[in-house]
């Protein structure tokens, strides 16, 4: 049961063909599913204010526009399935690597990965390190776009466990996945995007 005070509230958010309204509560993970091209990523990017959109998005009652966009994105953090890299080594992408080490190890990577060259990372390593990089911000809302799409079963379980701990600690999570089983495992509510509309699936 959730109280009425939503952590994140999305009202009539329109980005291209996508039109969405919903609430995300503290300590809640909702799954977002839909066919490829249905607008799942568009919706997450619009919530993170990475693309222009119409409508209202609030965090604890404060609108996106009431704060600078960088501040908003540190609170409502979008994690893409293919994280981007701008420097040569892993460490250069972290503000405080030492603080991220426990998370890195929890996802099965050694602390020495700090010195790894980005060019030699596998897809799975990139995905896990990209996730850790975002989790290290400690954002109250995480927007995860297929965070385990490139991972094996073991790494997927580790990511799901890590996110579950965050949810238990009060983080709100929107998790985009094509895997219906995963959606049932990680989320308490499931939504489908079809024809640009977002509807809740019955429990």
């Amino acid at each position, binding site marked *: 049961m959730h109280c009425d005070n939503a952590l994140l509230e999305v009202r009539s958010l329109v980005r291209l063909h996508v039109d969405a309204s919903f609430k995300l509560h503290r300590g809640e993970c909702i799954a977002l599913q839909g066919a490829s091209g249905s607008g799942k990523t568009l919706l997450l990017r619009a919530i993170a204010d990475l693309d*222009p959109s119409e409508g209202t998005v609030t965090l604890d009652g404060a609108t996106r526009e009431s704060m600078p966009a960088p501040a908003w*994105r540190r609170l409502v953090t979008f994690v893409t399935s293919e994280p981007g890299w*701008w420097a040569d080594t892993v460490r250069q992408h972290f503000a405080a690597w030492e603080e991220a080490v426990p998370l890195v190890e929890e996802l099965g990577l050694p602390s020495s990965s700090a010195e790894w060259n980005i060019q030699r990372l596998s897809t799975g390593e990139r995905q896990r390190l990209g996730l850790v990089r975002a989790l290290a*911000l400690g954002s109250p809302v995480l927007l995860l776009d297929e965070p385990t799409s490139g991972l094996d079963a073991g790494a997927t379980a580790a990511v799901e466990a890590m996110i579950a701990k965050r949810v238990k600690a009060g983080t709100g999570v929107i998790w985009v996945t094509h895997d219906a089983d995963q959606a049932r495992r990680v989320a308490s509510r499931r939504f489908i995007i079809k024809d640009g509309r977002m509807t809740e699936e019955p429990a």
Partner: protein
Amino acid sequence: MTYIRLEYGDLLLPALLVVMNGVCSIALQLRLERQLAIATVRMVVQLALVGYVLTFLFAAASPLWTALAAIVMVLFASQEIGVRQKRPLRGGWSYGLGAACTLMASATVTTFALLTQLRPDPWYNPRYALPLLGMILGNTMTGISLGLDVLTNGLVRDRAAVEARLALGDDRYHALLPVTRDALRSGLMPTINSMAAMGLVSLPGMMTGQILAGVEPIDAVKYQLLVMFLIVGGTGLGTLVAVVGGAYRLTDHRHRLRLDRLVARPDT
């Protein structure tokens, strides 16, 4: 000062070297012969015309005509900047940004040189102002077009990296910094390279021209140094403002990357 005077007929033999390049292009199937022919005809017509125009302007020595000629030169340079972009900015931004930066940089540096070092009488004397502006303009145009091209292509190529930084809470200035630095380096590199090689690998065109026209080599060198300093100043200033302006236009007040403000021209 004495110099060997050339007639138009004297240029026919050297022009055969261009024809030779065209033949090579056909033989090796480089498909450059058409471009080469057009560029050669353009150059001959443009230079012949400019010879007559400069003769008129020098004789008139009017501030109005001098300013008009300068504006026309800037507009042509802006047009070239737009044409050279693989992905120009939408709307009038590509032309406008190129024109504004070219005008600002070349006018500032040319005026600086006229008022402080050369001090001709009158200060806008077209015999000094226009050739100086032309040399600065040509290099500034190259710097700006290279800088903008590297900026726009870099942002398209590195979109994931830039947006990763934005998503993690960086502001647009920090998120675009690596691409912006690359763009500035690219814009300035041709000028730096030409300076480094000057005198050893190449004798600059203006200096050679002066020497051929009978000027003492030492005096020609002094003029060349002045021009090179002005070119570095103009190119640096123009490229900096153009790249920062381009980066500003390709983001918005909410620190979003706005690649929708670019036109894709994959065939260029």
